[in-house]
């Protein structure tokens, strides 16, 4: 248990909307080892952010967990009542989001926000002591002049600094699991590089398990040990980052990587994936990617492919790959 701070088992999540029931996450399982970073990669609508929220026990009110468990250090966060949830959320698992400005209350200084967390989550009542902890957290994330930042309001900080402050908020309680939901998508590339470096060094220093959610395969290549590729609510392939990016097996992974224009090489014509995302309100008897796949077999539209290991640690859900393997 100790070596897997985050375990997700057979997770299925539906959204109840005016237009019907959207089956956003479909039977997803994965685990993150201590100190490891796992990347959920996928396009919009793949269900990656929904999984991120479920790990915090923070799904929106119209979401229903149909089945499955999310274990944080062995405790199923989906079964906890509010009171018990608060002892895990922000203590053992934290999250950082895409837009740091939206995760801060504009009426409070960074110092007030952090002091409250230190007081209620860590139980440090002494003001002096609390401030010391907060200042340490601020300098830990590379913010210059923590004293000034302590007294700053969110609007006084730039996007990059605010994201650093959000990381300080997430990590001041020393959680074992950090969910990072597109944390650098809104930042410019030079700042993105800084924040990714920071997350990497904090992960090593604190032994954090990180669930990193991104649509950017390049970012995944930098920060992640393992990658799980999601399509329409399901994991279609997972494995070590090098394996997934350099020798992908699933047709969707292959195509997704081919779509990305590179700054390092002059591309000929860009490849793309024809068609669009399937209607997530429906059930599909076979492989959910089959309508857009150009390597379909007869059974692809009939039988749902299971995730099967093709090499140790590298699993693929594709009939063709499995048939080739024999």
């Amino acid at each position, binding site marked *: 248990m100790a070596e897997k701070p985050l375990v997700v088992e057979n997770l299925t999540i539906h959204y109840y909307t005016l237009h019907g029931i959207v089956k956003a996450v479909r039977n997803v399982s994965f685990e993150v080892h201590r100190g490891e970073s796992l990347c959920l990669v996928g396009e919009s609508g793949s269900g990656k952010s929904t999984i991120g929220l479920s790990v915090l026990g923070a799904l929106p009110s119209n979401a229903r967990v149909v089945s499955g468990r999310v274990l944080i250090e062995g405790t199923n966060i989906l079964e906890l009542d509010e009171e018990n949830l608060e002892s895990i959320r922000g203590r053992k698992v934290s999250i950082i989001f895409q837009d740091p400005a939206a995760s801060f209350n504009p009426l409070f200084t960074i110092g007030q926000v952090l002091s409250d967390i230190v007081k209620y989550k860590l139980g440090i009542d002494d003001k002096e002591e609390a401030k010391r902890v907060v200042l340490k957290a601020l300098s830990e994330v590379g913010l210059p002049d923590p004293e000034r930042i302590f007294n700053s309001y969110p609007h006084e900080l730039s996007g990059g600094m605010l994201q650093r402050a959000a990381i300080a908020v997430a990590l001041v309680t020393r959680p074992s699991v950090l969910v990072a939901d597109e944390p650098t998508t809104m930042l410019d590339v030079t700042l993105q590089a800084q924040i990714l470096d920071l997350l990497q060094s904090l992960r090593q220093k604190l032994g954090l398990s990180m669930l990193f959610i991104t649509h950017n395969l390049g970012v995944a290549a930098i920060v992640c040990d393992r990658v799980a590729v999601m399509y329409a609510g399901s994991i279609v392939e997972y494995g070590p980052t090098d394996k997934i990016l350099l020798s992908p097996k699933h047709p969707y992974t292959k195509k997704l990587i081919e779509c990305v224009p590179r700054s*390092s090489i002059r591309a000929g014509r860009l490849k793309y994936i024809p068609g669009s995302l399937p209607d997530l309100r429906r059930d599909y008897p076979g492989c959910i990617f089959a309508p857009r796949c150009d390597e379909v077999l007869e059974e692809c539209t009939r039988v749902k492919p299971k995730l099967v290991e093709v090499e140790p640690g590298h699993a693929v859900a594709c009939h063709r790959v499995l048939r080739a393997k024999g």
Partner: protein
Amino acid sequence: MIDEMTSILEVDNLVKYFPIRKGILGRVVGYVRAVDGVSFSIRENETFSLVGESGSGKTTIARCVLGLLKPTSGKIFFMGKDVTRLSKEEAKWYRRNVQAVFQNPFLSLNPRMKVEDIVAEPLKVHYKDMPKEEVKKHVYELLEKVGLTADLAKRSPYDLSGGQAQRVAIARAVILKPKLIVLDEPTSALDVSVQAQILNLLVDLKNELKLSYLMISHDLSVVRYISDWVAVMYLGKIVELAPTEELFEKPLHPYTQALLSSVPEPDPYLMRKKKRIVLRGEPPSAVNPPPGCRLHPRCPYATEVCGKIEPKLVEYERDHWVACHLYARK
């Protein structure tokens, strides 16, 4: 700086300052120097890209070119005519020939109109006498050309996916057969698989209709794919300008080098091999840009002179322009 004979758009020493007002009298207390003396030109049937991070002034330039902002000083020539002083007739001619595609198609398409009406509207404005049947014919031909099926024509933009909506915006931009299209981050809001389709479409249309593009982007990978020329901007200035391959293979300016080295790519071997040049801190405010070279407080190669004298954009090698003291000394 580029051969003037075939240039279609010429931007000459463009300056745009936004006043900062304070108090009830609206006293001007300072200026945001969004664009501070930028010159470039775009040749016929070529794509010219402005890249830079937020606040570098690239979108302000696009807005000046589109006539949505009045430059503080400097001139913009389109096919030889100064577009900052056009007569009413000429302004109409200019708008017919210069079109735009923006980042978010859902914000730039009227939600209360049907797709076919959106695409037809430019024709109705500029060719009032065109018979309805002919308008319709043009619209449906164009929808097919941009890869939209006829059954989408009766829908509203909200029933479309992001990629489809951007195709509608592109159809609307090309229906008047313009000479120049300003593309302001046209694929930033799209998923990669869709982005690839839109980029391919833009390249096809450019070749087929002999279009020129002024592309605004922060994404260097996209820029490399689509551009003929690239200008890198930092805090309101062009710091480097070169043909695309030249710029990506031999970046000279430390800022360009830092930008290129920061782009994450889905290739773990390359990422490990890549020498990262990390700039210190964050871009300063454009209200009080640093004296001398604007990059010098963050630049790993800065010397004393960089903080005092502003480097000029000079042609270091044929067609390769750079504004940096490292190269001026040679």
